[in-house]
């Protein structure tokens, strides 16, 4: 087990990179997912169709295939995803600006894939608000916008936050794939590096990276439980 101490800096570096890609992917997926959700509940049929098509494609395709498309499809189209070299953001997330584009490709795949699930979590929240409340708001004379803002969204958010959290936890675990698509130095690729290149025994290394993922996912899960309990009281 000495590898955990001897190579602590390697594990810590892997943890830090995985955390970075997860934070960026979560932000991207929440934004894109919200846009797709608005499309899907829009009263305009063509917009609804676009939203539905998006969810059907990305929710039903294996993440590995999405990663393949991002890592091999984008270069084939001549893109290095340079639009992700966002000034300011790349001070903290330095991998955004490296010449090797694989961090950006993996990020795109993770965002596209996760956004479909974010959309559905948000939509299930809107559907959880009883239609009668929206009707009561209309009968008081609230406009469509006021109805959403004061009655529907505050409640749909509460119903969305727990499923959203589950989506993000799944995304953190899914991020273990990025190491197989050219990203060097995240938690899962660290394991590969330490075992096959440097000859450390597999089980201690696996325990080390497991701890790394659990440090991210367990507190998030505990936070969700707390939010859920607080809501149960308010209900």
């Amino acid at each position, binding site marked *: 087990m000495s590898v955990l101490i001897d190579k602590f800096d390697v594990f810590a570096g892997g943890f830090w990179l995985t955390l970075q890609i997860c934070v960026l992917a979560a932000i991207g997926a929440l934004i894109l997912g919200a846009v797709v959700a608005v499309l899907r509940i829009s009263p305009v049929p063509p917009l609804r169709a676009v939203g539905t098509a998006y969810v059907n494609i990305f929710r039903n395709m294996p993440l590995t295939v999405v990663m393949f498309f991002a890592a091999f499809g984008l270069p084939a189209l001549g893109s290095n995803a340079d639009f992700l070299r966002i000034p300011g953001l790349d001070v903290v997330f330095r991998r955004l600006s490296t010449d090797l584009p694989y961090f950006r490709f993996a990020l795109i795949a993770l965002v596209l894939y996760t956004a479909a699930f974010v959309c559905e979590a948000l939509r299930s929240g809107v559907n959880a608000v009883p239609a*009668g409340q929206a*009707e009561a708001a209309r*009968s*008081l*004379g*609230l*406009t469509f916008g*006021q109805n959403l803002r004061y*009655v529907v969204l505050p409640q749909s958010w*509460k119903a969305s936050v727990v499923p959203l959290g589950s989506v993000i936890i799944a995304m953190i675990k899914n991020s273990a794939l990025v190491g197989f698509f050219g990203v060097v130095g995240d938690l899962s690729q660290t394991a590969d590096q330490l075992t096959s290149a440097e000859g450390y025994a597999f089980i201690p290394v696996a325990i080390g990276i497991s701890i790394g993922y659990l440090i991210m996912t367990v507190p998030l899960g505990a936070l969700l439980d707390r939010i859920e309990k607080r809501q149960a009281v308010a209900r």
Partner: protein
Amino acid sequence: MDDVTTGEPLIVLDGVNKWFGPLHVLDDVSLSVGRGEVVVVIGPSGSGKSTLCRTINRLEPISSGTITFDGQPLPAEGKALAKLRSEVGMVFQSFNLFAHKTILENVTLGPVKVRKEKPAAARERGLALLDRVGIANQADKYPAQLSGGQQQRAAIARALAMQPKAMLFDEPTSALDPEMVGEVLDVMTSLARDGMTMVVVTHEMGFARHAANRVIFMADGQLVEDAPPTEFFANPRSERAKDFLSKILTH
């Protein structure tokens, strides 16, 4: 309760038809409700009485015919419709209180956001209304913490807070435990006494008898009878009404 109506009627439905797909739920319904009048709508389930009630503030758009409120035809969707709805209070079978807001916040949301009243003033009037319906001590609780009867009284206070010209009641006591029906009907009766124009869809025949100016009997989407309650309950003219009354009054 005589001679309450003055001037031109407040609500006029003229030749109103409504289809749900192939189902003809409102069949050429014409009806006028005077200011201060209390009209109780009864009939078997599926007769279209709830739909009739919901067309008056256009929660249910109609297929043909006209509805005028206070001399104006009902506007289509948009700001004008929102304004009209703010002048017509509505009370639902399932209360439909906003679950994330306290009782007082439920009552003040409309006045503050729709009427742009000052929160302090809306709050003061809201508390007075809650006092009037007998639940002032529940003002800071959430809807789920109240009994059904209290929730429905809060819903009535919420509608009254907009100072509506008329109130619509869509089976307000049907979802209540029997012992809570009375407290809601008491509030409605006192509203009727104070001269509120009311359209009430209900199965409470006692309320129809003592609080209504007119009883409307509906069946199969048609308005079958329209008579003062004493006359209707003593001498229903149509077979449908006789049949309906015999079924509900024998128990």
